[in-house]
């Protein structure tokens, strides 16, 4: 998808890209938003995972990349797992390795879902949603979805 610049790798390994503002174990605004807004109807998130195939069953929305659907640090809540929202088959169950379809509503960017955490493993990708949202049953990542990023 992208060409990772060797310079970035070297610079990163040398610690030049260390983020100075966040101590270890801190949650981030993106994790907080994914966690607290993922089931709110007023969120503006463009990516949705469904418990069942063909965009059926319970769902949950995500606005930002997730390295591991099963373990996210949220301030005050410790390490938590994202769960499907409260309506439909699969409601309340964990999202990780438990989704069968997905929808991308973003009109410019694709959505990539990875087999394993931290963007490891094979991936399913959804093209941008032009002119209407694009949905796809997850082929390899059917019940094997562990991480997500815009791509």
């Amino acid at each position, binding site marked *: 998808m992208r*060409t990772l610049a060797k310079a970035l790798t070297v610079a*990163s390994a040398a610690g030049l890209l260390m983020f100075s503002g966040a101590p270890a174990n801190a949650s981030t*605004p993106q994790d907080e938003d994914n966690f607290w807004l993922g089931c709110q109807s007023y969120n503006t998130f463009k990516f949705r995972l469904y418990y069942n195939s063909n965009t059926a069953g319970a769902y949950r929305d995500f606005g930002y990349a997730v390295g591991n659907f099963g373990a996210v640090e949220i301030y005050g809540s410790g390490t938590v797992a994202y769960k499907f929202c409260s309506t439909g088959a699969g409601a309340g169950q964990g999202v990780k390795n438990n989704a069968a379809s997905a929808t991308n509503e973003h009109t410019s960017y694709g959505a990539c879902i990875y087999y394993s955490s931290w963007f490891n*493993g*094979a991936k399913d990708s959804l093209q941008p949603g032009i*002119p209407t949202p694009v949905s796809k049953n997850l082929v390899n990542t059917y019940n094997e979805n562990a991480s997500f990023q815009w791509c």
Partner: protein
Amino acid sequence: MVLSSFRVRGASRGARPALALAIAVALPLLAACGGQSGKDGAADGDRSADPGNPATWVLPLQAYMPDSEQEDLLFQAVEDAKAACMARFGFNYRPAQPLPDFGPDTLTDLRYGIHDRQVAETYGYKPAGDMIAYREETRQVMEAGTLTPAEEAVMTGKDSGKAGLPEGGCASEAHRRVYGADGQVSTLAMDLSNEAYAKAKKTEPVRKAFRSWSQCMAKQGYAYDEPLDAPSDPAFAALKAEPAEIATALADLECRGEYRVAEVWFDAETRLQREAAEQHVQELQEAGQVLETSLKAAARTTVTGS
């Protein structure tokens, strides 16, 4: 925050790639579809570019998928075509910017797990870079593309009241201009490759490599059944890798190397992909032709903007 340190897709090309480069980008796929096929009509898998770096390996079905530069070209072409269409209706649409670069570099990078000791020494199982900064920059890039209601109406073709609006709005026109038709682009090659990936995990050579890897890890005090169980360990939830994660990842790399986990897995997947490519050769070639045509259209679009 070091937002500017991320390399973005297409950044090296500038906003409008030159025609020569665009054509050069399109050529590898053309060659792959027509010239790199194996004797049975399917392309071969290849670890020869850099045997020690899985990111450089090439799976058979990649012959039918756009590579990263081609994806960049297609992305840029659609955005440029959107802008040209929006301008006809009096809107100054700024093409969506490439996303910051984070995560796997190629289809085979991280496909079988981590492989770079230098990265693991700092980031453990995570990709090189600062994920906090990456997501913040992603947010900014995505929010910069937010449309006003009037723009949205023309972009999507809904309720605009504008005369002469293309069907489905400017977004659809841009998509048609590059891909030739409405609707989703074929995902057949990706879907078949994913099936092969999952099947490969269940083959005996891979199972054996996994068992050996698991035993190797156990000797060093780490209990995981399979290599890709390790990055999913909830103990490694922190965005910045802690010493325990880094130590695990370094031990993992040693065990991976000793039992050639990535090589065995890649070779098993290659065999399965080759079979799938033979079984679906006609559909794949049709999808490849669509992609070839799209790349040519994209090369024209990014030059002319129309």
